[in-house]
């Protein structure tokens, strides 16, 4: 399919249409504007100019066919052919050419399902306890991190935020166990911005460290005063595209931070979407306009997570056992652009 498309474009490129004198003049003028594109210092204007160029269907000099024009043409041809039309072309993406992973979870496999259901989160998924989360940060957090932590306390139901006050993680975990917390979340800060999240499940559960990027706080969201739309209803948790065994472990860990019984009345949804090993967090309020369509309003913070390591047992980076770690092994593990671990 790829080669066919190329062949089509090649055909177009090889045979330029016949030109009149006025056409040539117009083309020259346009070419002169093209050259100016690289000298345009203003990125906004430069991008706008490029967009207009792309949309144009001229094939002269620039030998370029606009993407939209191409689509329109193909649609016309398909309609004209009717039943005999060639099948719709599927674009090749990195996701659909992803390297096959042997650890991809197949829910029909009895042993894999057994392994998943009998892991450390068995008690959470059998609804025996309500999670109680302790959220803290590194020492001396700045405003962005403080706001972020406060928003996280609104996202996770039954969570508390406390200042770090120079306590070590191991001691913190020990005292949290005594006070019946079920999870500890530590937000690390670097250069005045949250950059890491450590999640530790308490009664000897697994510990994971994520890198946080692209944090967008509620006050910086599109709608003003969106914070007023926050409710205390327990949200629904949506976990997308966690395919491998490691992905399942991570998704269960993230799911266990929320109450197992969501309040659908609140129409609040929290999404962890995994794509190419990046986990995107979004927080929406939805309203069904019809049977199929739902209107969404994005509330709350937006951030991206990337797993750095997953350790069996509570926090013990030096002496503990890791279930998955990529630090120091990137050359060995990142062998191809189409290989993902979650």
């Amino acid at each position, binding site marked *: 399919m790829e080669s066919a498309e190329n062949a089509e474009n090649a055909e177009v490129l090889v045979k330029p249409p016949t030109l009149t004198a006025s056409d040539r003049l117009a083309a020259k003028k346009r070419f002169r504007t093209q050259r100016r594109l690289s000298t345009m210092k203003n990125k906004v204007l430069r991008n706008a100019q490029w967009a207009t160029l792309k949309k144009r269907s001229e094939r002269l000099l620039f030998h370029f066919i606009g993407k939209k024009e191409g689509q329109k043409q193909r649609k016309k041809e398909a309609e004209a052919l009717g039943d005999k039309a060639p099948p719709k072309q599927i674009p090749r993406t990195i996701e659909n050419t992803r390297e096959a992973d*042997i*650890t991809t979870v197949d829910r029909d*496999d*009895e*042993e*894999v399902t*057994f*392994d998943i259901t*009998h892991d450390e989160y*068995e008690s959470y998924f059998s609804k025996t306890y309500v999670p109680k989360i302790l959220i803290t940060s590194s020492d001396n957090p700045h405003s962005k991190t403080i706001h972020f932590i406060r928003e996280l306390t609104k996202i996770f139901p039954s969570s508390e935020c406390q200042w770090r006050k120079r306590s070590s993680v191991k001691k913190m975990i020990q005292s949290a166990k005594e006070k019946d917390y079920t999870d500890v979340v530590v937000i690390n800060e670097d250069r005045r911005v949250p950059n890491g999240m450590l999640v530790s499940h308490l009664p000897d559960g697994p510990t994971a460290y994520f890198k946080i990027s692209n944090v967008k706080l509620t006050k910086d969201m599109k709608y003003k005063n969106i914070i007023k739309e926050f409710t205390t209803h327990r949200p629904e948790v949506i976990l997308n595209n966690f395919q491998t*065994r490691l992905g399942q472990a991570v998704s269960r860990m993230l799911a266990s931070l929320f109450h197992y019984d969501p309040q659908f009345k609140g129409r609040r949804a929290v999404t962890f979407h995994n794509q190419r090993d990046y986990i995107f967090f979004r927080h929406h309020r939805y309203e069904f306009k019809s049977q199929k369509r739902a209107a969404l309003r994005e509330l709350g913070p937006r951030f991206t997570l990337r797993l750095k390591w997953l350790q*069996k047992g509570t926090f013990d980076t*030096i*002496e*503990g*056992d*890791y*279930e*998955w*770690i*990529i630090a*120091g*092994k990137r050359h*060995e*593990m990142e062998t191809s652009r189409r290989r993902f671990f979650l």
Partner: protein
Amino acid sequence: MLPFLQVTNVAFSRFGNSGVRLKSLADNNLKFQMPCCSVVGTGLIMSSTQDFNVYVGAETGLFKGVSFNDHQTITKNLNSLQSLDRQQEITCMAWGNDEESEILMGLRSQKVKIYDTEFKGFSGCVETPFGKGPLRGVGKFNDSIITASESGDVKLWKFKASQQIEFHALTAGESLSCMRVSPYNKNIVGTGGKKNDLQLWDMENAQHPVFKAKNVKNDFLDMPVPVWVSDFAFVPNSEQVVSSSRHGHVRLYDPKSRGRRPVISCIPEADEAWTCISIASRSNQVLVGSGKGRMLLYDFRQQKVVHAYRGFTGSIRQIVCHPTKPLVVSVGLDRFIRLHHLDRQTPLHKAYLKSRLNVVLMRRDFGVLGDQDVDLDEEIVDTEKDTLWNTMEVIKDRTFTETEDILDKEVDATPTKNNGSSRKKRKTVP
């Protein structure tokens, strides 16, 4: 020729996977899909049909048999999922006898399951409640089972209650990590744990340890060096023991030597917590595996890392090396079992086993193609060329002593600044 082909065909069909296309021998386009076919006679080592050469214990309680062959790896669950829960986790495993026909498995719930490899089924389950915590060591000692729990309580279970021997191995420290019965020295049993250094016990007189290791000297800050023996192994044909520590140390102890301190104590690689150790088939070399997925071949005599191995994504729980062949099987939390050759970085084979793996055992008759030692220093003996050189006449036979004399004369002639003789002339000031 025909019988040769027949043998191969039979061998492959046992696993129901005959990739050999048998054509007439006269056919020049005869191609075997199996790359090893040309060396079939020695390449395929199968003692009997459907035999597993490696046994693995998983965290879910599953006991698996793995058969590494030249062309494929076959795995099978030897017990079913129905009766399993977290308390059935296999925490330690050992051979029950020298013929390797019996396997003892220690569980988290302080039971010992016995598997018969010839009969291919479980032959028993013994309740061995003594102490607290999961079983950290199991073994067979004079036809009786010996177990050690995490709280340090070791017990030899015999029929008569009066004959049972029990002792508390955790004289100091938090928990026991490992207990092993020595295959080379009679009656010796070793234990080691967190903040509890290596101890060797004589089962006939188990009140006091025969050998109790002493910690190395305090470090440069005069602080005691922390101890956490994660695993240890008995060196064959000697009384020595090698141990690995989660604080990064790899140590060699010799009970016969004067002093209880380790003969050699070193850190192969900084900031790695060694979780397992195994004696390699080459002298003075051991294999260590870490919690971050590093596996190294370490030489005690040279005190340096000889080789590092690739392919791991998670912690390595146990390593087994063949006693004579350069093959290593390793098992870990990333749910893979890997077979490495001692000289190659990438694994020869690996298999995904779906559950976190704790323990592994390897048969003595284990073998795959390419298991021979790759000796890089070996001289290629070419007899033809040798005879050619030997027939050529010798021009002059230069003796070493002649040249030695010449060099000495040269040295005496030239006066040097740091001449030995000038130093000797200098008198020491009282």
